[in-house]
């Protein structure tokens, strides 16, 4: 099962009854809640590894019956980290419902909002959630392996991370009315433009933001150079990819056609109209997970799973349409013969290149007088069905609605980025379990390797509000009968103890 061979047999153990179970529950320094379970035999050999996600999918049901113009504001409550993604994806679907083509002002205000979102989310993920692992080491002192530790050891890096995120949040506030859960995008357009005062407020810092984004790309580049074997091989596997591209093949996170390539780089479909995504993507269900497993129809559920997100986008686009980011993309693509483009930790490098691109796009948009335009909404002939797709920070995000003649939503399907990456994340942690855990005595540092692999994908596990990585964590060791043999507890202050 799956495209990778090494870890195929780790999805389901042949004789689970004889094995002990270790759970990483919850996975920390990711968005939302998830857990990992491992089944080990008496010699600590790994027989099964699964990432479980308790993703609350109720929105698809309780949006039913609501008026369509409410959807962009309601569904963004799925998430407290990248609500703009859901806000805009739903708005794009509603643009189809109201039959409107966006005015230049509306499209540019939305793009500004979206790239502000990319900037703040990527900064949050890299600096707050992942830099502790990358700067200190995966099994470094757990007491310091957090953003506070980064602030103490690398105060300038931490400061730039915090201020990059803050700037992105300010872009969102200016375009959406609030930093989190605003209302800027509405069916057929936007409800406000960007005033000259608001533009100038953002312009005064944008040079600094572009510079700091360049620094961030440099940090990951150096990490790869310094740890080339680790970074190239950690949790690495071959996979198909899916992402949006602009009509000319450029990276475009707001709009485009779907591009899918197989693990050898052969194009499966390109510039595909996402209004019919269901003809090329389908969702599989597995009995052990609440989350669905999407796959490419042409390849089938067994081998058709794929990866979305920064690594797919940056490696599969033909070019990045902003000079600084394009220069960095070429350095990334050619590094060590292209090895980083296949590495799970290559996500971080690609993500920072996208952050730099977002900063450049924001800078260019701020100089565009269309932002001050007053033609905000365009309504045409009402349609029954609307599909909105964007490239969210974590990958391709699909919103699909049907609306009846009374303006009420009667059907909704959401495929969020993390769902696309479900199987790929499972593959990554199975690789890591094979590489680092199999046959060794478990320690907190070894278990963190699993989390490092998950974090590379920047998953939004429940698409819920973020909890910083000091969530209490309990690892239980159970015998074959399910009785607790041993337990390791991490308290909310980050300390570990062995109770009893």
């Amino acid at each position: 099962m799956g495209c990778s061979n090494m870890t195929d047999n780790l999805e389901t153990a042949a004789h689970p009854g004889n094995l002990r179970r270790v759970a990483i529950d919850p996975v920390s320094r990711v968005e939302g809640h998830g857990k990992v379970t491992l089944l080990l035999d008496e010699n600590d050999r790994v027989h099964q590894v699964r990432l479980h996600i308790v993703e609350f999918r109720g929105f698809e049901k309780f949006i039913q019956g609501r008026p369509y113009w409410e959807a962009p504001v309601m569904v963004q409550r799925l998430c407290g980290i990248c609500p703009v993604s859901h806000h805009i994806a739903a708005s794009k679907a509603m643009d189809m419902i109201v039959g409107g083509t966006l005015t230049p002002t509306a499209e540019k205000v939305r793009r500004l909002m979206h790239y502000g979102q990319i900037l703040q989310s990527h900064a949050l993920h890299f600096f707050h959630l992942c830099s502790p692992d990358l700067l200190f080491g995966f099994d470094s002192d757990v007491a310091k392996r957090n953003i506070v530790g980064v602030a103490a050891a690398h105060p300038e890096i931490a400061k730039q991370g915090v201020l990059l995120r803050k700037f992105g949040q300010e872009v969102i506030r200016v375009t959406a009315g609030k930093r989190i859960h605003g209302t800027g995008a509405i069916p057929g357009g936007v409800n406000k433009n960007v005033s000259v005062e608001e533009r100038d407020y953002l312009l005064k810092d944008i040079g600094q933001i572009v510079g700091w984004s360049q620094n961030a790309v440099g940090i990951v580049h150096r990490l790869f150079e310094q740890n080339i074997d680790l970074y190239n091989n950690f949790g690495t596997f071959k996979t198909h990819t899916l992402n949006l591209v602009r009509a000319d093949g450029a990276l475009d996170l707001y709009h485009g056609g779907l591009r899918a390539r197989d693990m050898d780089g052969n194009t499966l479909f390109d510039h595909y109209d996402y209004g019919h995504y269901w003809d090329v993507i389908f969702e599989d269900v597995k009995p052990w997970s609440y989350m669905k497993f999407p796959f490419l129809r042409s390849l089938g559920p067994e081998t058709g799973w794929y990866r979305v997100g920064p690594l797919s986008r940056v490696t599969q686009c033909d070019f990045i349409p902003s000079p600084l980011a394009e220069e960095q993309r070429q350095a990334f693509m050619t590094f060590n013969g292209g090895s980083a483009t296949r590495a799970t930790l290559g996500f971080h490098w690609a993500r920072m290149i996208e952050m730099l691109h977002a900063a450049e796009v924001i800078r260019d948009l701020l100089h565009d007088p269309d932002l001050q335009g007053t033609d905000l909404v365009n309504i045409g002939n009402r349609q029954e069905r609307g599909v909105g797709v964007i490239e969210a920070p974590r990958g391709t995000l699909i919103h699909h609605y049907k609306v009846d003649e009374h303006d009420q939503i009667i059907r909704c399907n959401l495929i969020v980025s993390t769902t696309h990456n479900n199987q790929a994340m499972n593959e990554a942690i199975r690789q890591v379990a094979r590489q680092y855990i199999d046959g060794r005595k478990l320690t907190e540092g070894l278990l963190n390797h699993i989390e490092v692999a998950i974090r590379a994908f920047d998953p939004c596990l429940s698409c819920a509000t973020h909890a910083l990585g000091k969530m209490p964590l309990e690892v239980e060791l159970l015998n074959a009968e399910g009785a607790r043999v041993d337990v390791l507890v991490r308290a909310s202050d980050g300390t570990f103890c062995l109770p009893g």
Partner: protein
Amino acid sequence: MSDTFQLDGKEVAFESGQTVMQAALTAGHYIPHLCYHPEFKPHGSCKLCTVEVGGRTVASCTLPAEANLNVESNTGELNALRRTLIQMLFAEGNHFCPSCEKSGNCMLQALGYDLEVHTAGFRHMYPDRPLDASHPDILLDFNRCILCELCVRASAEVDGKNVFALAGRGSGKHLIVNAESGLLKDTNIALTDKAMQVCPVGVILPKRVGFTVPIGERRYDQRPISAQALDDAPRPPSGARHE
């Protein structure tokens, strides 16, 4: 020449026939209220405007102003009771401010902020109240109804149409549409009706308006409801206002 009464220790002038609420608002003193509307006969149902007079609690919107009354309104005890009333209204219906298009323009929400209602206080009842989206231009979201009857009064007294009524008793009381089918599409309501303009919450909505007013420009974004209500109050000629 007018008489005066005391409101929270301040002298308030009134004209004959005015209620305590009317005189207070005219004089620039805010008493929290929901079902009171300056253009309609006082109703006295929401009880939010309850004040204390001579040891008795009474709705100030229906209490005739009298000379030398000693009225207490802005007290810790009365505001605590008002908070409880707001909590009960929130618990009784389905009020999801985060995705409600009336957010920022809603009197119930604005009062919640103004009275510092920080917690739910009661278990939510989650009533099942389906929408009436049958009318091509008007949406009814009964989830948010607080039974103030302003739409009932406006439709009957101003529009002359009797589109709305309350039915049921006690906790089963609910807003209905006066048509054999029970659906709004079978009434003669129009977008220009007064009944379209008076709903203090998000029940009666023109369709396809949604979130067109940006955050920052909504009614209660700039100034709290306690200030806005004074703007809406009928004013005596300039210079005659008593502070």
